C-alpha cells in the first residue's frame, strides 16, 4: 500500500516552519508547505498567532524574496518560470493572510521587509502574480500600521494613476485602498483631485464589486471636509456621479450601501447646501437604520456612519428622531452582547442624538437606557467606556432633568468617579465631561458626589500634567460649586486649599485660569459668609486674584476676574474696601487706568462685568460708599460711564445708567 504523504509531512506548525526554512526541502515540498500554511491561517486568528510566534512571517518573506531575485535574474520561461510564479503567488497570499485583520501580523510583515517586495510584484508580467501582490497589499493597507503613501511625490502619483488605471480589479482596488488609507490632508486631497483621480474613481463605480466598494471609500476620503474637491465631485454632468452613488444606497450588498451612505455624508458635510433634499436625508437615515441589523462588520460600522450624519446637526437629529432612531438604537443596546466596536458606535450615535434635542433625551430616559449606559462605564474596552461617558454627558445636558435630580445618584456617580482613575487619558477626559454636567444638579444632592470621593479625585486631577485634564477637572469643580450649600462649599474648599487655587489662577493655560476664576466666583456667591474664603490666610487668595487682574491680557480670564471681584464687592464694607484696593491700589500706578481700559474693551461681556463691580462698590446704603465714589470720580470713571450712554450692548447701556445713577447720589457728578 502506498503511504500517505501526510505521514512524512506532518501538519504541526513547528514542522511546517522547519520545511519552509530548510535549504534541503525540495522546491515542490516548499511550495506545498506554503500552501498548507496559507490554508491553515486563512480566517483563523489563533493559528495566525501561533505561526507568528514561531517566526513564520520572516521565513515566508525570505522565500518571496528569493523567488523574486531568481525571477528578475533568470527570466526565461518553461516549467521553472511556472514554478517560481507559483512560489511568488503562494508566498504573497500567505503574507496577505497574516496581515488580514491582525495588527501584530501587519507589523511582522512590515518588519520582515515584505512591503517593497509585494509592490514589485504588481508590475509582473504574469497577471496572477500581480493579482496576488495587489491583494496582499490591499490587506496591509486596511491596517492603520501601513506606511503612509506620499502622493505629493510626482513619481508616486504617477504610479498611483498607473495602478488606478489597471484593468486588473485587484490592482485598481489597491490604488483606491491606498487613497483611503493615506489621503489625510487638504493638500493631498487637492493633489489627487488635480491629478484626475476623482474622474477615475467615479468610473470605477461602474466596475466590479471590489472596485465599486474601494472607489466609494476613497471618494469619501478625498472629499471629506474639503468643499473645493467636493464641488468637483458634485458638479460635472449635472451631478451624474452623485446620482450613481445615490443609486448605490439601494445596492443588494450591505457593505456597498454603507459605503455609499458614507460617501454621500462626507460630501454633504462639506457644504450647507449639498444633499439637503428631504427625500435623500430621510433615505440616508433609513438605510443606515436598516444596516444596524447587519450582524457583521457592516452593522458594527453603521452607527459610526450614522453619527457622522447627525453630529452637531440639529436638523438631521430631528429627522432621525422622527424616524424612531432613538428607539432603534435602544433596541440594539437591549439586545446586548456585541463586539466592543458596535457598542461604542451605538453609544456615540445615541450621544449625538441627545446633544441638542430634549425630545431625544426624554425618549432615552423613558426607555430606561441609562442603566445600559452606566453599566458600560465599567466595560473592558476603553473606547466603550469613553463613548458611554459621552452619551451620558449629552443626555445630562438637560436643565429640566438636572433640576429634577435625575442623574445624581449612586448608580451614576460611583462609576463616574472611578473612571477618574482610568488608565486612558481620553476616558478620563470623557468622564470629566459627564461629571461636569451631572454635578450641576439643582436638587440638594451634590453632597452625594462629595461622599463618593469625587472632589478628592477632581482636585487631584486639577494638578495633572495634561492640560485637557486640568481644565476639565476645574470645570467640573466650578459646576459643582454652582449654587451649592455652605457645608459642601466648606468641604470643596478644604480639599482644594488656597495654595492649589492660587497655582491654578496662574496656570500656564489661560483656559484653566478662566475656569479657576469662575470656580472662585461661584465659591464667593451665595451667603455673605462665603466671601470670607478669599480673605483667609491674610487675604492670600484675594492678592493672587489682584495680581492676575493686573497681569493677564486674556479677555475671557479678565471677565471672570471682574465677576469674582464684583461678587466680593457685593459684600460688606470691609469686602468692598478690599476690592477697591485691588482695583485702585495707589495713585500714579498704571493699574489706575485698568478700570477705564476694561470699560473701553471691545468685548461687551468685560464691560458688563466691570460695571457690575462699580455698581457694587457704589451701592448706596453702604457707609463707605461716599469716599469710594470720590476715588472713582478721580479715576475718571464718571465721564467714561457717560460715554457709554449709547453703548451698542443694551445690558452695558442699562448698567452704565444704573452705576451713574448711584454715583450721582453723592454730590457733583460732573467730573
Amino acid at each position: 500500500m502506498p503511504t500517505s504523504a501526510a505521514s512524512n509531512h506532518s501538519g504541526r506548525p513547528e514542522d511546517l516552519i522547519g520545511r519552509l526554512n530548510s535549504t534541503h526541502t525540495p522546491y515542490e515540498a516548499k511550495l506545498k508547505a506554503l500552501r498548507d500554511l496559507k490554508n491553515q491561517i486563512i480566517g483563523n486568528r489563533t493559528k495566525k498567532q501561533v505561526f507568528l510566534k514561531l517566526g513564520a512571517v520572516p521565513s515566508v518573506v525570505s522565500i518571496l524574496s528569493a523567488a523574486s531575485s531568481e525571477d528578475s535574474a533568470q527570466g526565461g520561461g518553461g516549467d521553472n518560470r511556472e514554478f517560481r510564479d507559483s512560489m511568488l503567488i503562494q508566498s504573497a497570499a500567505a503574507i496577505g493572510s497574516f496581515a488580514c485583520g491582525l495588527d501584530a501580523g501587519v507589523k511582522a510583515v512590515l518588519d520582515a521587509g515584505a512591503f517593497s517586495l509585494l509592490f514589485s510584484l504588481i508590475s509582473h508580467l504574469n497577471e496572477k502574480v500581480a493579482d496576488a501582490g495587489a491583494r496582499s497589499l490591499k490587506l496591509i493597507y486596511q491596517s492603520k500600521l501601513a506606511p503612509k503613501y506620499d502622493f505629493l511625490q510626482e513619481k508616486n502619483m504617477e504610479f498611483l494613476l498607473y495602478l488606478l488605471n489597471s484593468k486588473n480589479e485587484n490592482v485598481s482596488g489597491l490604488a483606491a485602498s491606498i487613497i483611503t488609507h493615506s489621503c489625510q490632508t487638504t493638500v493631498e486631497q487637492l493633489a489627487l483631485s488635480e491629478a484626475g483621480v476623482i474622474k477615475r474613481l467615479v468610473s470605477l463605480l461602474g466596475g466590479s464589486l471590489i472596485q465599486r466598494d474601494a472607489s466609494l471609500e476613497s471618494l469619501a476620503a478625498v472629499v471629506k471636509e474639503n468643499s473645493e474637491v467636493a464641488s468637483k465631485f458634485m458638479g460635472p454632468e449635472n451631478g451624474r456621479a452623485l446620482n450613481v452613488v445615490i443609486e448605490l444606497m439601494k445596492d443588494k450588498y450591505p457593505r456597498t450601501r454603507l459605503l455609499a451612505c458614507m460617501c454621500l455624508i462626507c460630501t454633504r458635510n462639506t457644504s450647507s447646501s449639498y444633499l439637503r433634499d428631504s427625500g435623500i436625508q430621510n433615505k440616508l437615515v433609513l438605510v443606515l437604520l436598516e444596516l444596524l441589523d447587519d450582524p457583521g462588520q457592516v452593522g458594527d460600522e453603521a452607527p459610526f456612519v450614522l453619527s457622522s450624519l447627525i453630529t452637531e446637526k440639529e436638523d438631521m437629529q430631528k429627522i432621525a428622531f422622527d424616524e424612531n432612531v432613538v428607539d432603534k438604537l435602544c433596541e440594539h443596546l437591549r439586545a446586548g452582547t456585541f463586539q466592543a466596536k458596535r457598542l461604542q458606535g451605538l453609544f456615540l450615535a445615541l450621544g449625538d442624538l441627545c446633544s441638542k434635542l430634549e425630545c431625544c433625551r426624554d425618549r432615552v430616559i423613558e426607555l430606561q437606557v441609562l442603566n445600559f449606559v452606566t453599566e458600560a462605564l465599567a466595560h473592558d474596552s476603553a473606547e466603550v467606556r469613553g463613548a458611554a461617558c459621552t452619551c451620558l454627558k449629552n443626555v445630562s445636558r438637560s436643565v429640566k432633568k438636572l433640576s429634577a435630580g435625575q442623574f445624581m445618584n449612586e448608580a451614576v456617580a460611583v462609576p463616574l468617579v472611578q473612571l477618574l482613575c482610568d488608565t486612558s487619558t481620553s476616558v478620563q477626559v470623557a468622564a470629566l465631561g459627564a461629571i461636569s454636567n451631572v454635578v450641576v444638579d439643582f436638587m440638594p444632592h451634590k453632597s452625594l458626589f462629595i461622599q463618593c470621593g469625587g472632589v478628592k479625585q477632581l482636585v487631584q486631577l486639577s494638578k495633572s500634567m495634561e492640560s485637557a485634564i486640568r481644565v476639565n477637572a476645574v470645570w467640573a469643580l466650578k459646576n459643582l460649586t454652582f449654587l451649592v450649600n455652605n457645608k459642601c462649599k466648606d468641604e470643596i474648599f478644604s480639599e482644594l486649599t488656597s495654595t492649589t487655587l492660587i497655582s491654578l489662577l496662574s496656570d500656564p493655560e489661560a483656559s484653566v485660569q478662566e475656569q479657576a476664576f469662575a470656580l472662585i466666583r461661584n465659591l464667593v456667591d451665595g451667603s455673605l459668609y462665603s466671601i470670607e474664603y478669599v480673605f483667609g490666610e491674610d487675604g492670600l487668595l484675594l492678592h493672587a486674584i489682584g495680581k492676575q487682574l493686573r497681569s493677564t491680557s486674556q479677555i475671557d480670564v479678565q471677565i471672570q476676574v471682574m465677576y469674582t471681584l464684583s461678587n466680593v464687592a457685593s459684600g460688606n464694607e470691609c469686602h468692598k474696601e478690599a476690592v477697591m484696593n485691588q482695583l485702585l491700589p495707589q495713585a500714579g500706578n498704571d493699574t489706575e487706568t485698568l478700570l477705564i481700559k476694561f470699560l473701553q474693551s471691545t468685548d461687551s461681556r468685560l464691560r458688563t462685568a466691570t460695571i457690575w463691580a462699580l455698581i457694587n462698590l457704589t451701592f448706596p446704603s453702604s457707609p463707605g460708599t461716599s469716599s469710594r465714589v470720590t476715588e472713582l470720580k478721580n479715576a475718571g470713571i464718571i465721564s467714561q460711564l457717560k460715554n457709554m450712554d449709547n453703548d451698542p450692548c443694551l445690558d452695558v447701556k442699562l448698567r452704565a445708567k444704573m452705576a451713574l445713577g448711584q454715583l450721582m447720589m453723592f454730590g457733583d457728578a460732573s467730573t
Partner: protein
Amino acid sequence: MPVRVVDNSSPSQVSGTTPGNALPQPCTLLSVGQAFSGTQNVSSLQKDEAWRVNVKIQGCDLDHGYLCGTMEALNVPMADTPVVTFWEGEIVDTKNYTFFTGKWGATEEDDIKHWTKFPSFLPLLSQVEADGGKSLDLSNYPYIFMRWKEQYFVNVGTDCGLTIAGFYYVCFSCSDGSINGFYYDPNSSPFQKLELKSTNDGRLGFSFSSYELQ
C-alpha cells in the same frame, strides 16, 4: 436697592425693522443663578389673598428662546411645606416664539388681553395686531416678554391638591430686573398678578454665579 432707570425708549426704536430679527441680547439680571422674590395675588371674589413667591433661573438658551427655573410658593394654604415647581419659558423673540401662544387653551384675544396689561407692551400693540409682531425687532427693547409654563412639581406629588395647568404671561424689565406676570388658566381666577424683584441674598450689591454644560 437698585435704582430704577427711567425708560426713555420710544416705540420708533422697535418698530418697522426688517424681518429675520436679531435675538434678545443677554441680560445679566436674567442669567442663570439669579433669584427673584415677590408675590402672586390669588384673590378672588370670595377672598383677598397673596402667596409669597421665589423664583430662581436655572437655564437660559437665547438662541432657542428658552429659559427655565423653579418657582417656590411659600404660604400656600393647603400645603405643609413651600411648593416648588419647575417651569420652562418661551422668550418672545419673534423668531422662536411670537406674542401669540397658539396652545395651552389661549386664543389670540386672550393673548392680547393679557399682554396689554403690561404698559411696556402698549407701544408694540399695533404692530402685533397687524402681523402678530413678526416684523418687530425686540433685540434692543429694554423689556423681555415671555411665557412661563410650569412643567412638574419638584418637592410634592401631583396629589397635592394644586394645579399647574395654566401658564404665565411675563414681562421682565432689563433695567432693574423686576418681573411682572399674569397667570392664565381658564379654570382659575383671571389675571392673578405675579410681582417679583431681583434679590441679593442679604448682600449690599449683586452677585453672579455661573455654570456651563459641556
